[in-house]
């Protein structure tokens, strides 16, 4: 990559391909201005709806680009790729798939959050939430598209810094402040780690572009083997902190507990998803061309160990947890472990494959169940006044339909058939068997069974314990809608996983999207 390429500048057509990100930023600016200009007495609920419109608009642009590039078409045509800014920013099938997942998840998080933010006295400036949420989503989108370390860092920081503030958005809550401080410190350190690793990688390969790094790494390994390892491991370590993958997960329960439930859901779904999507692309281009060399095997081994420890630590730590938000933080760690498996199993020699579809599929499943459970929790915790598990006691009597919805979502978490969680795990284990990492697949199934203990504990609370009051719980319509969207999608994917898998297979091309070369 020469310097003239990088200075090429954007043409108007290129800007057209950036519309998803631009829409989000423009909407954030609009909301900020309106929030500042309008008098206080005007209810700020409209800012939530505006942000939802912005996200749906962005979703529309992404889908349009995907179709335009030929992804998702059934005729088997190979989708095209748009490279912007000297191949540092790619609009391709891979990016489209993950952008669609993350944008849909964001929309489902905002929808029930609007009324929750309005009712939350501890959030002082209601409009601020969305001013910050939209840039965070834009950062996530950038991370899906990036093919360059610098762009990656820009997206990553945009996402991280916005979420630091979002965690502390309840200015009148001590817990929220504590969480924000912890998240800021941990996030800052991990960003520093990532940047430090990047600088080494740039130093030894002479490039920040993934494709160029992949090409230069053989030479770099010959000359500066230790420095290459340092660079990669700092970068992976920093990512592991952001992903809350054990043993770098200790911040997650505190932060998840302190943040408002919608922000927690955002951290659990969108942040994780964006980091995983970025990590897969980075890994496939830089380390996997080195497969069957000691370096490539070491990197994959690091991912395998990270995945296994996230599954084991997350699951066992959650066993004694009675606070729902902390429980979901730890189960999120375990689920991160599951989603790291597709990254860790690499590519095979017999047939070229990527595990991107498995990752994407499980991410959809995880997003649906996490958002569904958090939305329910939003309602239940307000009724109960706390986040403890016994707030769910007797939910069957107080809101039978919601209790049944929770059962389906929790069964999906536990990986019981007929849910998306089961098929997602099935495909991941199938992938791990393919690369002959039997122990990894075995660990995954084993920790799933151990996780039955706490998922079913919530079910027992709902169905076998008596409630303190018999008062019916009424769900706000937006919450009910979100929950049932999540439940029906979970069931639909559990029965017909082909819906999502075939779409991703048609859209993502290993050779064009993921291996840049």
């Amino acid at each position, binding site marked *: 990559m020469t310097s003239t390429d990088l200075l090429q500048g954007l043409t108007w057509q290129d800007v057209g391909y950036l519309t998803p990100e631009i829409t989000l930023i423009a909407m954030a600016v609009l909301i900020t201005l309106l929030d500042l200009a309008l008098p206080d007495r005007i209810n700020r609920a409209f800012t939530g709806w505006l942000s939802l419109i912005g996200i749906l608009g962005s979703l529309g642009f992404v889908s349009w680009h995907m179709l335009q590039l030929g992804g998702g078409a059934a005729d088997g045509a190979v989708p095209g790729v748009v490279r912007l800014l000297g191949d540092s920013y790619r609009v391709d099938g891979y990016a489209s798939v993950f952008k669609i997942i993350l944008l849909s998840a964001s929309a489902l998080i905002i929808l029930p959050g609007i009324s929750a933010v309005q009712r939350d006295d501890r959030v002082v400036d209601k409009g601020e939430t969305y001013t910050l949420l939209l840039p965070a989503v834009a950062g996530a989108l950038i991370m899906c598209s990036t093919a360059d370390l610098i762009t990656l860092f820009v997206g990553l920081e945009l996402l991280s810094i916005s979420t630091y503030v979002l965690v502390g958005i309840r200015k009148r809550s001590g817990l929220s402040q504590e969480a924000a401080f912890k998240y800021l410190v941990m996030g800052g350190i991990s960003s520093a780690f990532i940047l430090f690793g990047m600088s080494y990688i740039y130093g030894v390969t002479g490039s920040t572009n993934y494709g160029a790094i992949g090409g230069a790494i053989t030479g770099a390994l010959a000359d500066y083997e230790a420095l290459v390892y340092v660079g990669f491991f700092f970068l992976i370590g920093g990512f592991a902190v952001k992903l809350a993958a054990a043993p770098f997960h200790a911040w997650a329960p505190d932060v998840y507990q302190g943040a408002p439930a919608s922000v927690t859901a955002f951290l659990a779904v969108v942040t994780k998803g964006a980091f995983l999507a970025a990590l897969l692309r980075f890994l496939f281009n830089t380390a996997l061309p080195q497969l069957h060399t000691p370096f490539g095997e070491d990197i994959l081994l690091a991912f395998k160990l990270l995945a296994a420890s996230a599954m084991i630590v997350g699951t066992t730590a959650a066993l004694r947890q009675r606070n729902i938000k902390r429980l979901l933080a730890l189960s999120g760690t375990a689920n991160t472990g599951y989603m790291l498996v597709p990254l860790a199993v690499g590519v*095979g*020699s*017999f*047939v*070229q*494959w*990527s*595990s*991107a*579809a*498995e990752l994407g599929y499980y991410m959809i499943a995880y997003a649906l169940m996490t958002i569904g459970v958090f939305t329910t929790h939003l309602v239940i915790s307000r009724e109960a006044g706390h986040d403890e598990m016994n707030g769910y006691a007797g939910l069957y009597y107080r809101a039978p339909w919601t209790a049944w919805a929770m059962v389906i979502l929790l*069964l999906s978490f536990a990986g*019981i*058939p*007929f849910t998306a969680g089961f098929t997602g795990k*099935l*495909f991941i*284990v*199938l*992938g791990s*068997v*393919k690369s*002959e990492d*039997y122990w990894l*697949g*075995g660990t995954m*199934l*084993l920790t*799933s*069974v*151990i996780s*039955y*203990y706490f998922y*079913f504990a919530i079910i*027992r609370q709902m*169905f*076998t314990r008596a409630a303190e009051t018999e008062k019916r719980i009424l769900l706000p319509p937006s919450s009910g809608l979100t929950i049932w969207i999540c439940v029906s999608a979970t069931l639909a994917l559990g029965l*017909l*996983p*082909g819906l999502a*898998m*075939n779409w*991703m*297979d*048609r859209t*993502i*091309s*290993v*050779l064009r999207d993921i291996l840049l070369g």
Partner: protein
Amino acid sequence: MPETIPWLTFLVFAPLLGVVVLLLVPRRQTRLLRLIAVAAALLPLALSLWLFGQYDAAVPDQFREQAAWMNVALNREALSGSVTSFIYQFQYDLALDGISLPLVLLAAFIGCMAALASVNIRKRRKSYYVWFLLLETGMLGVFLARDLLLFFLFFELTLVAMFFLIAIWGYFDREKAANTFLIYNGLGSAVMLFAFILLIYTAGFQAVEAAGSVELIYSGSYDAIAANLLNPEAYVNLAPNLMDGDNPFYMSGEMRWTVFILLLVAFGIKLPIVPLHTWMLHVHKEAPVPVVMIHSGVLLKMGAYGLLRFGMFLFPAEAREAAAVIAWLGLASILYGALLALRQHDFKLVLAYSSLSHMGIVLLGLASFNEIGIQGAVFQLVSHGLISALLFLIAGSIQERTGTTELAELGGLARSVPFISGVLLAGGLASLGLPGLSGFVGEFLSFLGLFESMKVVTVLAAAGMVITAAYVLRSVLGITFGPLRESGEELRDARLIEAVPMIALLAFIILLGLYPSVLTGTTADSLQAFLSQLRVGG
């Protein structure tokens, strides 16, 4: 869709039809709810009896229904251009053979009897019947599914339904029992799923060549896997050195053993085999009566069925080498179960340990590797299903009347409730293997089959039968005769609705005891393929 009428689908989903109707009925209509549930349980029984009449022992897999459920594309791209797609194929595939048939009949029959016995359920009847019928769909499906994943789906359906049935409607310690059940069986399911995935990945792999293109397919189809394992040309049997040193789908000898052992452990938990049995005791003690009837009568049989269908039929060579281990495990279950049953103070626990002991006999029959022994094992499954369902039903009736199943607090019931006591006595005699009742036939055939190959084990196991007689007589006679306790003075004998399932179960126990060929006839032909394979291999 097949042009013929999909009878098996009707059979499996008949209870689900009941669920749909139940959901439309208001929860206060308790009589109507019960009526619908019993009708929904009668429907599969009628269908399975009809299928039994239509069944032709000479034809291998009957009433077959196959439909592609889904073809899931895995995101793989071949470096060589000819490979066009790489898919995971999941089939909806049901079939009936001589091994499924008796177990389907058993499941439908016990399900119906348990539905009748559900009158004692007094709370949340509507959701009870919903879970109950879901459980029935699951267990019927397990015995008919011919796709690995489909089998697993039905298997897990029973797991979830059982969890709710125990946790909500069980006795005092129900939540703990439900949890123990869930974790143990979840573990078994996970092990089974892992074995299945290994099988699908190796033996289920096919490369289908069409004009100029190659489709790579993973399939969970039981027939495809069985055929591939037998076919020396299939990828699963081609050693890497025959294929330029790289064949990821090859199943090495070690891998075969691993899968076989995983299956043995998975189904061994369900069966249960001795060190893996503790969960069963909690369930038998705490679950509501109809659920225990189904659990002991049908669900335990799923373990034996899975072991036979997936463990032994797919890996005959490994199973044959492991026959001695299986037989000794069976013996351990028999003796351990019998000895502990002798020491129990609670009638339900006597029955629970007795189940463990009787399932050991099934293992002995399977380990014989000849027609008589395996027939005996299948027969024993059905027979024990009937007997244990009957005994648990009676235990439930006694508990309802006296409030206890402690042996020390029961006695002399023959005077106050003669009918229940009489049936209990008959059930006890069937359990200890009195000739003329069904228990005898299963035990006798299993022992006879095993005696050919393992005389020592057979003799020791037969000695275990003496202990069986001792614990059965000790508990049954203690309950029916002896001094009448205060608690037992003013009891009502069985109502009609309780008597009906008791009589029906007992009638079948006697029928099978007198005419065992009703069942053995159907089983024999289905075993031929397996046995001929053994003769070639062994």
